[in-house]
């Protein structure tokens, strides 16, 4: 089956294509080179005047796993307020801040997204994460598995075990949990909280293991790098949300010692302590460091005003925030000597000094990072805002007037504390395509996504050109997934299941016996139980493929 998409303006940064009018060809679910003239085209789509990009990729979004389900359980009012009504092609679901998995898949696809990555998979909860992602229609998916507060890792590190053994453990974890990257959340801090420690600075010793977060970041960046895992260590740094945490952030960059490192939702980690309120923007210092250190990538974690829910593995930070929830409720968990989590509903208000400044800080970061290949568009869904706000965020980045008008409505003290009004930069369509397509695919090491060259998956988003970029990005005219039209005019027309993406680096099997012994001695589950088979992944994903990507050798 050969499809032809004719006359669209194509933005494909992976191939330096910047708005050229080009015909695209799709064969058997993949992008194809222009065929011989005599070959029959089965269907043609006239895309004259349309903007065409690869399907978008969200490389940090909380879409599956225990803490999301806790958030759903906490917020029936969120679901009542936003029902997703059953149609001939879609099922019943609901939710705005903590949507059901069905709603999540439909709405991401309706916005032109074709791949989403859950950034905080606990090893012991990996099956639930994959089941939930498996029940998320249309989009491709994958997960980053959390290490760094699990007692097994901390014991290895505290015992001075060699890096090679740690690498084996990291590789085993990736294979067992079928994930594509390694995440660390508040390194050592989730564990420290279980010992009644309420904060843990980068160079502060863990109360029991006497390790520092710096030790943990250094060791894990090395492990990820030496194993050849394409995605860098994905770091939710120490002291999230704490005024003055810019020092932790800059220190964390240093802890990587030049190896690739990804700092996630960096907006929440870019705070100073200046001014009367002792809360200020440190975006300039953070972005200066990102610009200078080419081993560093970041995603912003922009906040947007309105009701949402914060759901995080950072049990220490969430306990600290637990009294500030809106509505006032909170769930915290210590989990299986593995990790933890905390869920706090939250309403960001533009009249509130802190929230208004947080909004400005995120935008400062977007506008001050020079290299669009090293900064990614996220709201840390749902922590900063639900992902359905992305079109609004894109407009803020592309339309300076709109941005400054919004800034002028915010808390006046916050306006005085930000340089945002003087930042004239406007993102181009090409740069948006980098942030939301080309760069995430490259950073994940997934060769067939994020671009429209021959051999790529035919995940294609077609937008009607509109000066109101929010309206433009909110309702694509077409979304193709593996060559099939799944969305038309912003509505799902069919809902196939997407693929899972993972990596499986090699390791010495000796770690298996050690883990088996450890779990039998100390845990309430056997280590073997953590290992997920390929058959299970196929069942979780309703028969969809699990693609295991190569590691660098």
């Amino acid at each position, binding site marked *: 089956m050969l499809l032809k998409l004719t006359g669209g303006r194509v933005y494909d940064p992976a191939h330096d294509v910047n708005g050229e009018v080009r015909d695209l060809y799709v064969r058997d679910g993949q992008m194809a080179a222009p065929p011989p003239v005599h070959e029959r085209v089965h269907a043609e789509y006239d895309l004259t005047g349309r903007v065409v990009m690869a399907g978008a990729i969200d490389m940090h979004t909380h879409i599956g796993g225990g803490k999301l389900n806790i958030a*759903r*359980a906490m917020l029936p009012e969120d679901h009542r307020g936003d029902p997703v009504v059953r149609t001939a092609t879609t099922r019943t679901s609901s939710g705005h801040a903590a949507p059901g*998995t069905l709603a999540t898949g439909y709405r991401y696809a309706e916005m032109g997204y074709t791949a989403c990555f859950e950034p905080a998979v606990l090893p012991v909860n990996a099956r639930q994460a994959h089941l939930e992602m498996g029940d998320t229609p249309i989009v491709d998916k994958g997960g980053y598995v959390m290490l760094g507060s699990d007692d097994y890792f901390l014991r290895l590190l505290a015992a001075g075990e060699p890096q090679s053994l740690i690498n084996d453990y990291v590789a085993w974890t990736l294979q067992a949990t079928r994930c594509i990257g390694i995440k660390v959340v508040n390194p050592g801090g989730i564990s420290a909280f279980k010992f009644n420690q309420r904060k843990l600075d980068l160079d502060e010793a863990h109360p029991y293991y006497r390790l520092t977060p710096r030790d943990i970041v250094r060791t894990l960046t090395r492990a990820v790098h030496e194993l050849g895992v394409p995605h860098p260590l994905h770091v939710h740094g120490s002291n999230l949300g704490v005024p003055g945490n810019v020092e932790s952030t800059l220190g964390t960059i240093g802890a990587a010692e030049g190896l690739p490192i990804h700092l996630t939702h960096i907006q929440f980690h870019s705070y100073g302590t200046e001014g009367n309120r002792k809360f200020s923007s440190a975006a300039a210092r953070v972005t200066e460091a990102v610009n200078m250190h080419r081993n560093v990538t970041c995603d912003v974690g922009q906040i947007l005003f309105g009701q949402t829910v914060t759901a995080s593995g950072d049990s220490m930070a969430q306990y600290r925030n637990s009294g500030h929830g809106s509505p006032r409720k909170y769930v915290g*968990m210590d989990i299986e000597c593995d990790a933890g989590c905390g869920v706090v509903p939250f309403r960001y208000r533009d009249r509130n000094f802190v929230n208004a400044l947080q909004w400005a800080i995120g935008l400062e970061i977007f506008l001050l990072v020079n290299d669009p290949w090293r900064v990614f568009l996220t709201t840390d869904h749902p922590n900063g805002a639900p992902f359905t706000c992305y079109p609004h965020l894109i407009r803020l980045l592309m339309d300076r007037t709109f941005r400054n008008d919004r800034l002028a409505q915010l808390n006046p003290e916050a306006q005085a504390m930000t340089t945002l009004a003087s930042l004239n930069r406007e993102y181009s369509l090409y740069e948006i395509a980098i942030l939301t397509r080309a760069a995430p695919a490259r950073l994940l090491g997934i060769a067939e996504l994020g671009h429209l060259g021959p051999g790529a998956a035919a995940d294609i988003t077609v937008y009607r050109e509109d000066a109101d970029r929010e309206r433009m990005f909110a309702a694509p005219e077409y979304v193709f997934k593996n060559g099939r039209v799944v969305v038309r005019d912003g509505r799902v027309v069919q809902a196939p299941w997407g693929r899972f993406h993972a990596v499986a680096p090699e390791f010495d099997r000796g770690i298996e016996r050690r883990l088996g012994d450890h779990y039998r001695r100390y845990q309430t589950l056997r280590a073997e139980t953590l290992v997920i088979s390929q058959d299970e992944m196929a069942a979780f994903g309703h028969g969809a493929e699990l693609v295991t990507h190569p590691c660098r050798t």
Partner: protein
Amino acid sequence: MPSLGCPTVTGRVLYCRVMTAPAVASEFRDVTCPFCGLTCDDLTIAAAGSRLTVQENGCPIATAAFERAPASVEVQPRIRGGATTSPAAVAEAARLLRGSRQPLFAGLGTDVAGARAIARVVDRCGGVVDHMNSAAMQRNVQVVQDTGWITTTLSEVRNRADLVIIAGSDVGRRFPRFFERCIEPEVTLFAERRRCEVVFLGADPAAGLGRAPTLIPCPPERLGEAFAIMRALLAGRPVQSPGTTGVPLSTWSGLVERLRAARYGVVVWAAAEFEFPHAELTIQMLCELIKDLNRTTRCSGLPLGGSDADLTAESVLLWQSGFGTRTAYGLGRAEYDPYHFSTAQLLRRGEADLMVWVSSFSETRLPPRTDVPTIVLGRAGMVFEEEPAVYIPVGTPGIDHAGHLFRADRVVAVPLRGLRASHLPSVAQAIDAIDAAL
């Protein structure tokens, strides 16, 4: 693919497919038990044909559940009590479902695959979904919806807890190996000789607990008042009397001090045992006390459940639609109403015209008596006072087929395997067949 020590079993286990059992006896090691909710994964089970015997690491619940007859060959589907074929039973079930306007899918004792299949069909049919344990679960669900809580999981208790309070629940009877696996072990990640103090609050001590625990004989229905008194004492407010708890005030202040001094206190309860009005308020008061304690030390709750896979159904429904059990899909959107959409209320008011009762783990959890036509997908061996319209015997996950189940502490979804040859469909297969025939 990593595999940590293949279990010593002949024949390959495939997910959701029938396993061919050998003719001679064989032994399965490291079997996961799906029955009480603790999902102990260290059982040794011997199989001789379809007869199973628990040999190691069993408990009264496991032994009874694994060793029950009958073998699958003896059980056939029935339509109004008359033996029939599987296709005929499926066709009759589909006919009844097609003709119903508000079907109720209840019982819901099934694994993840079964819960996914039911979620799909109840949405398609515009029915209502409830679990046989939902009255107990709602006592916890409503606390999470209103103010939330701080909880922990089994391995954390096993390694960290230095004080465990069993609140108003016969944990030893419902979860027979809980003390052995989580309290008794002395060698932990952080100590060679951990001593965990145990207090039974309004509950009888478990048989076989190794040391003399403290007993506080407050009636369970007075525990809400007890927790309120403890919160007030913890906050330094003047408290004049122990109210109607029947226990001296000094006992409550003593318990508060022990909790405050503990490094990792854990309060355990089974909501199923809080059978008094507004038990959710009692649980909420307990959870607020736990939150208060976390200002200065670490303390967590451990709500235990998971029997008849109640947490499994709740989790699957919740993540797909945004709502768990007691939800109706008739209007094309999900309507959660814990009062109106309970099995008891729907049947009493005649608001369901068909009931599909699912119970694959327990053949003793029977559908409630009703005139509403009932389709039963039940564990082989179910005995009815009145034969249902359709009875489709199904396999038990973890015995007759592989599957997945959520553990009592809500984080781990454990894999289950089949241990014997079975002609019985899984719940998922039976539901899929009915769906295809609709």
